């Protein structure tokens, strides 16, 4: 038992937790924005791949790191626009469209990677974001500025959702689009905006992997993180604060299983520990399912002038 305690009181453990939580938090906030506006975005998995790739590619080509993040956000926004066109403009099935976007975004990224680097065996590297030594706070000092950005987004998005007219509009189109239309607010514009913004965040979430957590782009690096974000949003009841809590909780268990693999607790094959995060996501969904209050218009296509 004391070994478990040793793991948990070690500062390096909590540094890992926050690092693992960052892309999940960014992705979850992205999904949250889309779903608050009533649109399921299963494109996240592919958009994260694309963000990881373009962000990294920009930096590899010589752009400063922040420009890489911007490139990733723009990439996410473009795929978000595609998803919005399909689900908002044409009212297609949000499930199928999202899977299509995921497929397209990851295929394009892998294709682009192979075209750019046809013959490399080890992935080329970049110099990633540095730790924030200047900040003078114990755990945060070992994170990069992308983590700080993600943490600052939580109150920012909460404020925007609950305290600004545009946030009210986003919540309204996710609850009852007819109400928004009747008050002179364009459902199409608000939903499209929310999806584009949310998808940009998903792109940034991907770029965290290549520009901060690692220093290269490789295949399958997103590895289901996008799907976990979709589960975390339900767990978070579509609230930014709880999204942070959910991402941290999830990262806690993920970091723990990594440590346990190497400890004397590692009595089971390593795969069992690796399964833990996915199993936990399902458990979390089951736990909150009964009292989850979905945005009422989620996944309901809205056609102007139709009931």
């Amino acid at each position: 038992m004391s070994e478990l305690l040793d793991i948990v009181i070690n500062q390096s453990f909590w540094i890992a937790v926050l690092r693992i939580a960052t892309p999940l938090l960014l992705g979850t906030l992205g999904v949250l924005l889309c779903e608050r506006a009533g649109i399921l975005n299963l494109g996240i998995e592919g958009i994260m791949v694309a963000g990881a790739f373009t962000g990294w590619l920009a930096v590899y080509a010589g752009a400063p790191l922040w420009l890489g993040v911007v490139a990733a956000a723009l990439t996410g926004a473009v795929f978000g626009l595609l998803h919005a066109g399909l689900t908002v403009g044409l009212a297609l099935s949000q499930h199928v469209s999202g899977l299509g976007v995921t497929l397209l975004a990851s295929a394009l990224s892998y294709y682009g990677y192979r075209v750019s680097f046809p013959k490399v065996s080890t992935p080329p590297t970049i110099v990633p974001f540095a730790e924030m030594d200047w900040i003078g706070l114990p755990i945060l000092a070992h994170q990069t500025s992308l983590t700080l950005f993600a943490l600052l987004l939580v109150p920012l998005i909460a404020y925007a959702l609950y305290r600004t007219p545009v946030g009210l509009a986003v919540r309204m189109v996710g609850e009852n689009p007819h109400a928004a239309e009747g008050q002179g607010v364009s459902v199409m514009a608000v939903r499209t905006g929310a999806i584009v913004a949310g998808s940009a965040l998903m792109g940034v979430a991907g770029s965290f992997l290549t520009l901060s957590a690692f220093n290269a782009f490789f295949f399958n690096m997103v590895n289901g993180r996008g799907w976990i974000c979709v589960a975390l949003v339900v767990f978070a009841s579509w609230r930014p604060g709880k999204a942070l809590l959910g991402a941290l909780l999830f990262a806690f268990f993920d970091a723990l299983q990594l440590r346990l693999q190497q400890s004397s607790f590692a009595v089971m094959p390593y795969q069992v520990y690796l399964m833990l995060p996915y199993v936990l996501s399902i458990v979390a969904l089951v736990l909150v399912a009964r009292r989850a209050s979905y945005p009422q218009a989620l996944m309901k296509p809205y056609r102007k002038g139709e009931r």
Partner: protein
Amino acid sequence: MRLERREVASGAALILAPIGAVGFTLLVSSLLVLWAGAAVGETYGLLLRGGFGSVFAVSETLTRAIPLMLTGLAATVAFKARLYNIGAEGQLYAGALAAIAVGGLHGGTGFDLPPPVLFVLMMLGAAVAGALLLLGPALMKLKLGVDEVVTTLLLNFIVLLAVSLMLDGPMKDPTAMGWPQSVALVGDLELSKLIPQTRVHTGLLWAVSLAAGLWALLKYTVPGFDIRAAGANARAAAFAGVPVTRTVVIVALLSGALAGLAGAIEVAGRTGYVTLDMSPGYGYAGIVIAMLAALHPLGVIAASVFVAGVLVGADSMSRVIGVPTYIADVIVAASLISVLVATMLTQYRIRFG
């Protein structure tokens, strides 16, 4: 901008929509080919020849189409009942594992049963494994309201880790020199070849018969009506006397079983053992195929041959002129999106203002 339902499908739209869909897909992929510095015409020529240009090419395409057909059917029946099973990938692996568990050479000859009996047991085991894997998410959806999309997606990762665990442990092939690979299937259980000197096997007949069977089930039987009714409008179906919950459970079992069979047939017909990369995303591709086929079981046959042809052709083309094989995934994804849009535009018109 708004959508307005067409009273009658417009003739022009019915002709223009598929042309537009093909055109859009070709445009996207041509730009990518140009980016890779290859000649567009030559690339497509090689791709077509690689997929359909010779007996060998066709046989390879058909071989690849078999698992796609089965996962495509799995997605078709599930989506018909509006059960969004995105877990066919995991169910396929579960079926493959079950096939080896029943019919693998575990330090000897497996069970002491006549091969035909063992074969039936193997297929049954695979179907049950796939079915049970989807039963959980289906029950969670029905009883707790948990969205099945996320649970089935997450289960794919869990199953793949379980496969890895089995290949490291109980099912490890000791002769594979540390390569993660399962013990081999008993030779008697392997499916025979359909065309000599090629890899295409009798699994194709299984897949086509299952497609025909599913088509007949949906069109001519009461359970088939139940599936379509429950998917189209669950409340109205319940009012008309359709046992909606039971129907969704049956659909889950059926869909999971079809995906599980894809795994077993792949093991028995092509690989002979399970590896971690035996499916390059057949489960996910099945969803695309089901949508390309507009959820019609017979359309699934054609759509899976198309997708398999693109995949096989891209492999062959890539070996010659070095355009990355991922072009195939782009073509498949772009055709999915463009077909969805095209179908929508035959039913609706876009009006501005």
